[in-house]
Every structure is written in structure tokens, then in C-alpha cells.
């Protein structure tokens, strides 16, 4: 079992929260967006209780996502980077290898919806190129997509082509205008709203616009069909506390006084 944590820190030095989460949930791979904490500083905090367990996995070029692993970074080989995407080949001894893609798409503050959709076209293409190069499609994509699961870029065939149904994703691909597009399964659909345990989303926004969702799920993990047998929806959670401190204020909204305006997501793969 490999466990993952993704968190957009909103440029806040949430060292203790990260360390507590890493310990409480026994996180193997920590992925951080908008991380301004120096890697050496975070490593000291992650490794302060005796044995140095965590490693910094920097990749070759500094990018938007920082990664720390509970195994040597040699097992997380960078194979592709662009400005807002890093793709690593995770190959642990004795376990099925896969591609770990991590991204931080431009926010709606800077890019309109159609521009964000365009970004997913490029994301999808880059992921497919990496899959062609590595020879399989066992890929997960995790990050702050700055889009909800139902937005165009997330669902359109030429974009991330992610679907809410495992059964549909397991078909593998869909042909549109004579071209085949691979699916992603998007388990985040199941976490929308307040009918399931946990908060209604990962990001709360309340402004004066007429069209407003209030809660959004911008922070997502998508899984290729080839890797679905390793993923259970029971192993996916939006986290609201590090075990000691809640990330939510008494009204149930992200507490931006002490934490990020994004909530972290946690998931596991059984390989």
C-alpha cells in the first residue's frame, strides 16, 4: 500500500500540520503546491523524531509541485516536466510501477474557464506522450486542477476525459471523430456535496457572482483504468484535521487564519 497526500499550501508555512499529517496517516508521498517552505526546513521537521524517514524528491527542474517521499528519490524518476506539470516514474522494488503526474493548473483568478480547458488539452497530451515513452498507461494525475470534476476541461475527450463511473472508465477509451481518447476515473465526484462524510469540497469561495457553487473540488486525483484495481474509493478522503488541530473554523469552512484555503486530499494505492 502506498499512501499519498496532496495539499495546496497557499504559500503558508504549515510545517507542523504537514508533519502531523505525514505521521498520523503514514504518508509515503507528500505532494505540495504553492509551497514556499525551503525543502531543507521541511525535511528537518518531517525527520525530527529519530530516524530520517523522508527524502526530498526534487526532479531536475524546479517546478510548481514539491515532492517528499518516504523512500529514496531514486525510486521516483523524473521523466517529463513542463511549467505546471511534473511526471515521475514510481518504481519501487517488488511493486507494480506506475506514472505519477502532478499539476497545478492556473487559477480562475488569472485564466477564464475556456483557457483552463485548453490547459487540460495540453496536460492530456503530455501525459499520453509520457505513457507512450514508458510503454504503459498505469498513471495517476493529482493536483490542484482549479476546476471542478464537472467542468469542461475535466470531462471533454480531448482534455482529461475523466468520468464519474468506474464501470465507464474501465472501457479504457472512447472514440470521438475517429480518434481514441483514454479515460481517467475521477473518484472526486463521490465527494461532492454534503451527503457523504467529510466537507462538501476542498475549496470554498463566496463572492458576489450570480453563478456560485460555494464549495468546489479543485484538488483532485484521477486514475487510469489500468491502475483502477489498485484503488478503492474507501481510501480517498478530504482531510479536515491533522489529528490535533482542525483546518476548519467553527462554521465548517477552511480556517484561513491558521491554515490554507485548500483542504488536503489523501488517498492510497494497493500495488
Amino acid at each position, binding site marked *: 500500500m502506498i499512501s499519498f497526500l496532496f495539499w495546496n499550501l497557499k504559500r503558508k508555512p504549515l510545517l507542523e500540520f504537514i508533519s502531523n499529517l505525514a505521521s498520523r496517516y503514514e504518508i509515503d508521498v507528500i505532494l505540495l503546491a504553492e509551497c514556499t517552505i525551503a525543502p531543507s526546513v521541511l525535511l528537518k521537521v518531517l525527520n525530527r523524531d529519530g530516524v530520517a524517514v523522508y527524502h526530498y524528491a526534487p526532479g531536475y*527542474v524546479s517546478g510548481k509541485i514539491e515532492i517528499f517521499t518516504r523512500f529514496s528519490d531514486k525510486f521516483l524518476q523524473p521523466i*517529463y516536466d513542463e511549467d505546471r506539470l511534473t511526471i515521475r516514474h514510481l518504481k519501487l522494488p517488488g511493486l507494480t510501477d506506475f506514472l505519477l503526474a502532478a499539476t497545478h493548473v*492556473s487559477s480562475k483568478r488569472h485564466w477564464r474557464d475556456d483557457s483552463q480547458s485548453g490547459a487540460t488539452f495540453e496536460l492530456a497530451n503530455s501525459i499520453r506522450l509520457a505513457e507512450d515513452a514508458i510503454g504503459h498507461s498505469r498513471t495517476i494525475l493529482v493536483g490542484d486542477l482549479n476546476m471542478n470534476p464537472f467542468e469542461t476541461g475535466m470531462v471533454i475527450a480531448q482534455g482529461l476525459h475523466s468520468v464519474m463511473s468506474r464501470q465507464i472508465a474501465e472501457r479504457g477509451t472512447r472514440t470521438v471523430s475517429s480518434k481514441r481518447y483514454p479515460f481517467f476515473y475521477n473518484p472526486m465526484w463521490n465527494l461532492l456535496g454534503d451527503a457523504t462524510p467529510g466537507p462538501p469540497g476542498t475549496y470554498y469561495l463566496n463572492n458576489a457572482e450570480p453563478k456560485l457553487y460555494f464549495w468546489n473540488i479543485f484538488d483532485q486525483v484521477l486514475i487510469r483504468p489500468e491502475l483502477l484495481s489498485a484503488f478503492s474509493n474507501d481510501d480517498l478522503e478530504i482531510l479536515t484535521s491533522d489529528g490535533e488541530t482542525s483546518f476548519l473554523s467553527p462554521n465548517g469552512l477552511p480556517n484561513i487564519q491558521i491554515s490554507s484555503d485548500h483542504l488536503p486530499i489523501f488517498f492510497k494505492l494497493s500495488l
Partner: protein
Amino acid sequence: MIDLWPKEIDFTQVKAPVTLLKEQAALLGQRTKNLLEAEVELYDGGFNYLITNLADKVFGKGKSQFFHYAFYFIAPTLNNYHYRLFVMSYDIRLYPLIIDIDDDIRLEIQNSTADVLVANSEQEFVELLRKIFNASKTKRIMQSILAQIQFEPA
């Protein structure tokens, strides 16, 4: 049979932007003993909406087929690691062309709110390439990859 083709057909005068780019890509390998190479490949990323939205402004209405190319840094000794620096797009007229690049590099080169870089002629394109290749972040990217190559055991 009558030959109806114009006498002035000339296949050699005009250099396509992709040709210019491939020439520069080839030069990088020579500079770095092929430790760090560059490659230009047809880009099949679909028509980026960002570029589509700008198409009317840059290319005018009645646009024809577009050509898209991606420019990559490649480190063959690092398991063929790729870093995509930018995507270039133009139509059958060759110019104007659009370059969709990292925000940091774009802002360093062009202090404006435009989302892409535009070149209206071969001369402008050459100058734009010079600025891109010499941008601080581009140099940092190349140095980072080269540092890693030199760090890897033989």
C-alpha cells in the same frame, strides 16, 4: 499540354519557422556535447482553447489550417528526460505566429498582459527566440538539467 503554373515558383526563398527552430535545436547539442539536446516535434495537443481564443485577434478571421510544434529540452542520459519549453503555432502564411510559453519567461520577455508571444515576421521570430533562449528561467532550466547530468554516476 499547356503548363498553367506561374513562372515564379520558388521553393527555397522562404524559411518556415519550424525550420529555423530545428536549426537552433541542432545547435544546442553541439554546445553541450549532446548531453542536453533540443528537439522540435509536431504537437498533437489538440487546439488549445487559449490559442483558439486569440486566433481571431492574431491571425484574423477566415483562418486556415494551423501547424503546432513543441520545443523540448531532452537529456538522453537521464532516461531521455523531456522538458517542454514552449509550443509554437502558425497558419499557412507562416507569420504571424504564436508562442505559448511559461508565464515567468513570457513576463520577463514581454511586459504586457498578452497571454502569448507573437512574432509578425521572420526577423521578429529570430529576435523572440534569442530572448527566450537567453531568459533567466530558460538558463536556470538548462543549468539544472546539466547539473543533474553531471551528478549522475557514469
